């Protein structure tokens, strides 16, 4: 496997904390992590999604005009078009930034994922809490040869993790790796 593992010595040999107060400075941190970025094609996928999104809105606007028998005031279009343009630009901007914002990282005992342009989140799921792992591929993702990895815990929908923009092979490797990790935890 080509994945780089960042194994933390501290975790391999559980240390008994003799200091009862929480010493925040001596903990394994995530600051020195090596983040894996996503497939370059994911950048194109995001742009394609943004393009499709604004196209759908434009079509909807045209359709609305036709449905009204072309009886829409010119003023409506004069206002609606710039609004549409600004929204589209915003959408493209977000889509372009998203690629740089998203990354994941595997460690010996957990998986990390960060994402978000306006609201950034960093999720960490320990392997011993993973319920199951699955791979999802939408039509656009299939076209770009990408896949999404879904990791489920018992913590409900908002705590589940979806890593999108993975090459199919990498997604499968990750799935197998996590399944193996969690499986071994169950046997323990």
């Amino acid at each position, binding site marked *: 496997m080509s994945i780089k593992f960042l194994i933390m010595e*501290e*975790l391999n040999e*559980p240390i008994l*904390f003799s200091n*009862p*107060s*929480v010493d*925040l*400075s001596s*903990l*394994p*941190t*995530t*600051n020195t992590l090596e983040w894996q970025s996503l497939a370059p094609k994911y950048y194109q996928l995001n742009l394609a999604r943004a393009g499709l999104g604004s196209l759908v809105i434009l079509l909807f606007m045209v359709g609305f005009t036709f449905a009204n028998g072309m009886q829409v005031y010119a003023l409506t279009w004069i206002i609606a078009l710039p609004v549409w343009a600004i929204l589209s630009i915003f959408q493209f901007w977000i889509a372009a930034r998203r690629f740089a914002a998203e990354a994941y990282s595997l460690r010996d*005992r*957990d998986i990390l994922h960060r994402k978000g342009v*306006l*609201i*950034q*989140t*960093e*999720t*960490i*799921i*320990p*392997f*011993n*809490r993973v*319920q199951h792992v699955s791979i999802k591929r939408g039509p656009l993702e299939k076209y770009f040869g990408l896949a999404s990895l879904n990791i*489920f*815990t*018992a*913590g*409900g*929908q*908002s*705590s589940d*993790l979806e890593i999108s923009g993975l090459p199919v092979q990498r997604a499968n490797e990750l799935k197998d790796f996590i399944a193996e990790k969690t499986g071994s935890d169950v046997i*323990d």
Partner: protein
Amino acid sequence: MSLTETRLFSLPTRQSPVAIILILLRLVRTLFRQLWPLLLVLLFNPRGEVGGYITPFIIGIAAISALRSIISYFRYYFYIQDRELIIERGVLQHTRTAIPFDRIQSISLNQGPIHQLFGVSSLDIDTAGSSGSELSITALSVQEANQLRTYVLSQRAPISSQEVSDDESEEEVSPSIAPTSKKLLLELNIPDLLKIGVSQNHLRTAGILFAFSLSVLDDLEQVVGPEIYKMMEERFGEIFTSFIWASVILAVFFLIISFALSLLFSVLRNYQLRFYRTDIGFQMQAGLLDRREQTISLPKIQFIRWSANPFQRFFKLYRLRLYQASSIAVSAQGAMTVPGCYDAQLKNVQEAYFPDWSETEKTLHGVSRYLVRRRFIIHGLLPAGLFFLINLGSPLQGIIGGVFWLIFSYFWNVRYQRYWKIWLSEIGVEAHYGLLTRHRYLLHWRHLQSTKVRQSFIQKRLDVADLLLYTAAGTLHIPYLPVEKAKAIRDFILYRVESSQESWM
């Protein structure tokens, strides 16, 4: 369990015939709820012309639904096969649901007034897993219900031997099952009930009542016809010449009514509440008309939360909730709510959930001062600005009101921020927040499922972040921690979760 009982449920069994009555009653209730404006029209029949086609329409719908309900009773079977509880049902479309015993989290028996009358009980089966389905059997004789529950729970895998004791709950109903150790922690007497009733959130009831009466008024206008409605309005208009007087009187009226209502409901709901500590967890029975019973086993409790509003603080009462992992997890139903308990019971629950919490050394942390700024903008500036805009006609009033609100909001939020207290230890966390109603929660790290550190673009500039702790029973949330601290806390929790073999359930 004896073989005879095993055989008993191995054949497809119907529910008790009482189920027909219950199903029909449920139908009547639904129909009434959907159609009551129409029924009102029929009763008063202000113009005499509507009744003609509405009556057969209603009767038709009622008859078809009733027929369907009765058929559904005869098409409903349950049985046990290969350590699975199987339920087959459906009138047009046949459904077969198989629940493996091991996936059954809990089975609770519930008796409404009609159940009590006929000596039957409904069975609610809660399953774990993402499928999120909860199944229930409408009516089964109490004896059968107990047999079924005891059998299923005793056949269930690891903790089965203890889990049977889960059952002696039904002392009054089934004395045959030997009671095992069960300690009564709390029994509410009448003064307690009144205290709990008085300290309910009456404002919320008033709000619901207000919304409800608005919708009723809306319907009423259609029902009685615009002329009568207008006449009524005019007559009321004479009395309530001033809008302010009208709203003050209305508000007082709604408050009084809602006070009485929430008191009544609270007493009915919590009548003879008994809260037990059992071998495996806790149990609660309560209710006058609808006697409900809830059992929760210790390993399933993910976190506990307790709160006290000013009234409850006056009575030294707490509202205590035990959040358990279940298929309906993230909703409120997954929790056991003790509407009122005292310090002793609270201590007992804390002790059971988190044995050495009080002795554990903790460090105290607060949230960032920036929280004041954010809350001041949302709860202070925004409403004040709106108030000013509404009162543009009399700017002085707008300015005075706005400034007053801003000052109030500022001091309120400064205190709110100071009141956020987080006690961290190696094994768990306790947090306090809220000014008017004071909330507290207690979480053992081993119940943690995953964590998230969240930063909006504004928070990023301020170098603060929210920390979200996900459990199988819901999410706990610590806002506005300095980023470094949020990440350090998260890293520590993960270290705890990942380096221990303790299971979360």
